[in-house]
């Protein structure tokens, strides 16, 4: 049966330490070995085990390469050997299921929350979240970028009702480590170093096909989250007022807006009537 053949080969190819070791396991090895012997033809050039092991090697190293590309800073922190073992453990739990390799590493950040490497490198899960957010931002949906001129025509009395749409690539992360600085060092070819333990709210976004990240300080983090959920400018000022006082709040939020416009974080401003 074709389905049985495919399941047999899949189970051996994805064995974490290769086909020969899988066949040496007392619990399942002998049965698998007989099934493989009946299924795959060996010859003087290569045995059936060696032939299938070519695929097992390619399976692992292809995925290892993809994850190295997605998580260069995690690789820099852990080093090659630990990263290799991490990917081995990860693939046992999160077997690729989507047609594109693009998503093979999607669950590594969550996986790192429970992996033993976290004891030695407690920043890893946060670092992986930042790196995966950068992967996601790279090919996020396209959108127009709002220009400052589009806001110039809005009468002051209508600003309170103004709502904003953010670029689809924008992601907000609350990290417990300064992982953004670590990633910057790796990007610049420097030593990864050890990040400080501190609360670091980050935003990640794409502009002109380049992915950026930066720190959001309070109240910017709360204001941007509120506006992204659909609240209006007046509500954003009320939140900002808790930190900077009611008198300065409109100016504070306006300065955030100026920064977001400069960085390309906004894609539209909306009133009941189109702006």
């Amino acid at each position: 049966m074709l389905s049985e053949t495919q399941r047999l080969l899949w189970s051996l190819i994805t064995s974490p330490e290769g086909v020969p070791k899988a066949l040496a396991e007392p619990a399942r090895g002998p049965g698998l070995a007989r099934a493989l012997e009946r299924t795959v033809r060996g010859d003087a050039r290569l045995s059936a085990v060696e032939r299938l092991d070519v695929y097992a090697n390619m399976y692992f190293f292809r995925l290892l390469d993809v994850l190295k590309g997605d998580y260069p800073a995690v690789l820099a922190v852990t080093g090659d050997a630990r990263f290799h073992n991490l990917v081995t453990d990860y693939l046992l739990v999160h077997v690729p299921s989507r047609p594109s390799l693009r998503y093979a590493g999607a669950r590594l950040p969550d996986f790192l929350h429970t992996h033993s490497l976290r004891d030695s490198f407690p920043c890893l899960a946060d670092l992986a979240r930042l790196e995966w957010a950068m992967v996601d931002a790279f090919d996020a949906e396209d959108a127009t970028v709002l220009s400052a001129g589009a806001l110039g025509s809005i009468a002051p009395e209508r600003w309170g009702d103004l709502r904003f749409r953010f670029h689809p690539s924008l992601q907000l992360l609350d990290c417990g480590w300064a992982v953004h600085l670590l990633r910057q060092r790796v990007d610049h070819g420097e030593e990864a170093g050890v990040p400080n333990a501190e609360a670091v709210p980050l935003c990640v976004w794409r502009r002109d096909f380049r992915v950026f990240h930066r720190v959001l300080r309070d109240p910017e983090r709360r204001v941007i989250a509120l506006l992204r959920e659909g609240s209006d400018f007046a509500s954003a000022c009320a939140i900002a007022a808790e930190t900077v006082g009611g008198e300065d709040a409109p100016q504070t939020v306006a300065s955030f807006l100026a920064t977001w416009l400069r960085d390309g974080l906004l894609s539209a401003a909306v009133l009941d009537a189109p702006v």
Partner: protein
Amino acid sequence: MFKAAFPPLGFGVGLRTKHYGYVLDAQPPVDWFEVIAENFMVRGGRPLHVLERVRERYPIVLHGVSLSIGSTDPLDDDYLRELKALADRFQPAWISDHLCWTSVGGHNLHDLLPLPYTEEALTHVIERVGRVQDRLGRPLVLENVSSYLTYCESAMTEWEFLAAVADGADCGLLLDVNNIFVSAFNHGFAAADYLRGIPANRVVQFHLAGHSDHGRYLLDTHDHPIREEVWQLYAAAVRSLGRTSTLIEWDDHIPEFPVLHAEALQAQRIAREALEQIDAERNAAAPLVPHHVA
């Protein structure tokens, strides 16, 4: 004639990320590009922008790696919908994928596993190709994979299986000349027998690539220049199967674009010489027209 519906595109190169900037800026005189379909099944960003601009200037072919036409899993509806949307948007000259299986039990190996060459597999693949072609609204072109194993239960040769799929499903073939060479070495068959068994009318494209020598077996790594033996097999393929769109693949340790372009131009020279040789042989074999005898 099946092949007549796929006019030759000439000599192309597989478009890779490393060359995006060069291709957009220099607009090299390459006949066409092949792109990996899955790399463009994304929501936005640079890949789709680049493909838009490339498509404005060049014919393209969508080449998939995850259709898994030989899998016993159900066909992936989401994947087919995305593939069709991509084809509708970019209007490729054709869509190709591999005669293999890549997934089972909902898990993807991201590798091109050969099928056992049995009646069961043949029936299974033909039925699925038919459904895919219906979904895409166009013929599918299937490529022979390089392989490192064969199955005890296979009852026909790879080329017999390939030809039977093409005829049974009324689909096209993408003949990877390097894959034939690699598999011939790994399994001990004659590449010439393979070429003789392929129906010329079904072959709409050739692939050429480099491989690496691991001593007891060859690995289809796409990380070397095309080997001399593969160029010779390509010449034989052109003589046997006629004028056919040809594409250079290079996926690892990718050199600068002009190196790939030079390989495409080498393919063009070899194909021209092979076709000239056929013409010369035909002319030599043709009987002289006798003078009219009153």
